C-alpha cells in the first residue's frame, strides 16, 4: 500500500462509525470520486454496466424473471451508491480531502459572517398582503444620536382593529412614540393598536405613527445601512369596523340639517361634526390641500352639510342614480348606507353616504387615485390638473 491508501484506510478506521468498514480496508483505500462505479468494482461489487446483458429492462434478454432482475438492478445501484459514499468519506480523510474540507468550512464561515446578520434582520413576512407598510427613517444615525422614523400603514378594507408591530434592531434604545405604543424591551418590539389609540376605524384604514430611538454604543457598524430596511409589519383583525356607526334619523337634537335625504343623519351619527372639526380633520388627513378642500370644495358642493343630498333628478340623475351625498357630494352604495367597504358607483372610495370622517377620507383617497387632479369636483374647476400626487 502506498501512503495515501494507508491514510485512507486509517481514516476509515478512525471514522468507522461514520461509514468505514473492514471491506474498505481489504480492497484498498484509493477512490475515484468522479467514478463511484469504478470504486464499487474495486470492492468486488457487481458493475451494473456489466450486468446490462442480464437486465431484461435493457432489452437484451437476461434472466427469465423480470422481477428478479429489477431487484438486482436496485441492489447494484444501492451498493454502488454506498461505495461512492464510502469513497467520498475516505477522500476527505486524505490530505487533499482535508484541505478541501477546510476550504469548504472557510467558505461557509465567510458566508455566515457576510450574510448572517442580514438574514437575522430580514423584515417579517406581512401576515396580510393587503396591508401596506411604509417607513421613512433618516439615512444614517451615529452612536448616541436619536432619530425618528415615521411609519404609515394602510389597508384598503375595513377591520375591527389595525395593528403595527415594529421590531427594532439590536443596538437601539426605544425613546418614545406618538401615539404611545406598547413597548416590549425584551423582544425589542413596539406595538400600536388603532383601536387602543382611540382612532376611528374607517375604510380605507390609514394608520400613521412616529417612533424615536437612540443609537447605543453597542450598535453594529452597519446599522445606518439598515435603517431604511426597517422591520415593521402591519396586520388587521377580521370583521366589520367596530366604530362604524350606521346612519340614524336625527339623533342630534335638531342640530343636523337632514333636508330630504332618505337616510337620515348619515353624515353625523355620532353628533360630533362641526366646521372646526372638519377643518382640523382635513389638515390631519391631507395637509397640503386642506384649504382647497375646506374653502373651495366643501363650501360649494355641500355648504358644510355632511347630510347634504342631491336627489337624482335633472342633471344629477345622469350622473348617479343614487344621487350625490355628503360634504363632498360623492356616490353611494347600493342600497345607500351599506357599511363600508361596499363600493359606490365608481369604486370603494366613491362613498358619500357615510359619516363625515369617512366622507373626508374617501374623497381624499378618491382624489389621490386620480393623481390629485381634483377633477371630480366642479367647484375646483380652476384647479383641475394644477396639482399632482
Amino acid at each position: 500500500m502506498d501512503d495515501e491508501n494507508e491514510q485512507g484506510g486509517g481514516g476509515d478506521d478512525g471514522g468507522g462509525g461514520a461509514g468505514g468498514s473492514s471491506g474498505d480496508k481489504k480492497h484498498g483505500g484509493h477512490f475515484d470520486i468522479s467514478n463511484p462505479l469504478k470504486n464499487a468494482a474495486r470492492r468486488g461489487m457487481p458493475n451494473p454496466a456489466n450486468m446490462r446483458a442480464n437486465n431484461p429492462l435493457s432489452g437484451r434478454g437476461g434472466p427469465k424473471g423480470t422481477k428478479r432482475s429489477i431487484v438486482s438492478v436496485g441492489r447494484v445501484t444501492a451498493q454502488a451508491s454506498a461505495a461512492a459514499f464510502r469513497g467520498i468519506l475516505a477522500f476527505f480523510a486524505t490530505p487533499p480531502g482535508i484541505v478541501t474540507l477546510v476550504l469548504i468550512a472557510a467558505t461557509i464561515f465567510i458566508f455566515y459572517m457576510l450574510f448572517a446578520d442580514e438574514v437575522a434582520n430580514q423584515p417579517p413576512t406581512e401576515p396580510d398582503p393587503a396591508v401596506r407598510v411604509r417607513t421613512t427613517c433618516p439615512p444614517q444615525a451615529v452612536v448616541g444620536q436619536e432619530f425618528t422614523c415615521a411609519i404609515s400603514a394602510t389597508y384598503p378594507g375595513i377591520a375591527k382593529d389595525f395593528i403595527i408591530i415594529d421590531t427594532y434592531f439590536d443596538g437601539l434604545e426605544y425613546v418614545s412614540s406618538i401615539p404611545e405604543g406598547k413597548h416590549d424591551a425584551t423582544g425589542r418590539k413596539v406595538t400600536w393598536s388603532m383601536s387602543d389609540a382611540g382612532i376611528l376605524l374607517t375604510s380605507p384604514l390609514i394608520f400613521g405613527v412616529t417612533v424615536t430611538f437612540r443609537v447605543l454604543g453597542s450598535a453594529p457598524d452597519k446599522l445606518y445601512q439598515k435603517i431604511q430596511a426597517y422591520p415593521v409589519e402591519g396586520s388587521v383583525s377580521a370583521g366589520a369596523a367596530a366604530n362604524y356607526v350606521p346612519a340614524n334619523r336625527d339623533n342630534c337634537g335638531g342640530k343636523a340639517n337632514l333636508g330630504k335625504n332618505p337616510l337620515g343623519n348619515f353624515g353625523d351619527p355620532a353628533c360630533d361634526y362641526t366646521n372646526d372639526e372638519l377643518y382640523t380633520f382635513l389638515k390631519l388627513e391631507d395637509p397640503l390641500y386642506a384649504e382647497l378642500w375646506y374653502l373651495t370644495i366643501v363650501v360649494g358642493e355641500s355648504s358644510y352639510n355632511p347630510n347634504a343630498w342631491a336627489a337624482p333628478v335633472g342633471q344629477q340623475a345622469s350622473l348617479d342614480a343614487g344621487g350625490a351625498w355628503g360634504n363632498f357630494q360623492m356616490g353611494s352604495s347600493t342600497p345607500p348606507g351599506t357599511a363600508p367597504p361596499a363600493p359606490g358607483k365608481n369604486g370603494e372610495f366613491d362613498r358619500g353616504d357615510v359619516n363625515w370622517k369617512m366622507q373626508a377620507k374617501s374623497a381624499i383617497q378618491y382624489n389621490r387615485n386620480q393623481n390629485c387632479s381634483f377633477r371630480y369636483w366642479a367647484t375646483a374647476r380652476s384647479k383641475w390638473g394644477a396639482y399632482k400626487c
Partner: protein
Amino acid sequence: MKQKQKENIFIIALAGLLLIIVFWIAILAFSAEPTLQPEQQIQPTITITLTPTPTHETTSPPVKYDTAAQDKLLDKFNNRQALSSNDTFAKAKILASLPPGQQSGIVYKTSNISIEYVHSPDLFQIEILTTDIAQAKAAANVWFRAQGMSQRGICDLPLLFYLNWEIANQMRGQNIQFSPLGNGC
C-alpha cells in the same frame, strides 16, 4: 505516487477555484447594494399602491361659485394681512361673546344670516339663509362695522360667505354665480 500527487494538485486547484467563485459571487452581491453617502438623502420606498379610478364625471353643484373670487379668498387666507389694532380689538370683542370655554361658534344670527367663528382655520363664516344674497351680505357687513371693524379689516379677517344648502338648492338651475367674498372685498 506521481499520479496521486497530480490528483491532489488537481483537487486543491479545484477547491481554490471554487473559493474564488464564491468570493466573486460575494463581491457581486455586495457591489449591487447601494452605498450610502453621508449627504445622500435616500428617497423612501413608497409601498402604498394606488388603484386609479377612471372616471370623467364631475359633481353638479346647485350654484356655481365664482372661481376668481374663490382663488382670491384662498390667497387672503394663506397670505393674511395683519389687522390694525382697532380691528384686532374689535375681533377680540366679537370672540368674547362666545360661550365660556368655546373657541368656535355662532356669534350672530338672524333669519337671513348666521355668522360663525371657526377657530381652527381662524375664519368667520357667514351662512346665507335667504335667496337675497346682496341683502344678506350687506347685513353682515353692517354688523361687523357695528362691532368696530373697519371695511378693510372685514376683508382681511377674512370673511367667507356661503349659501345654506336648502337655499342653494332653491337656486339650482338659475345660472347664478356666487362669490364667497364680502361686498367690496
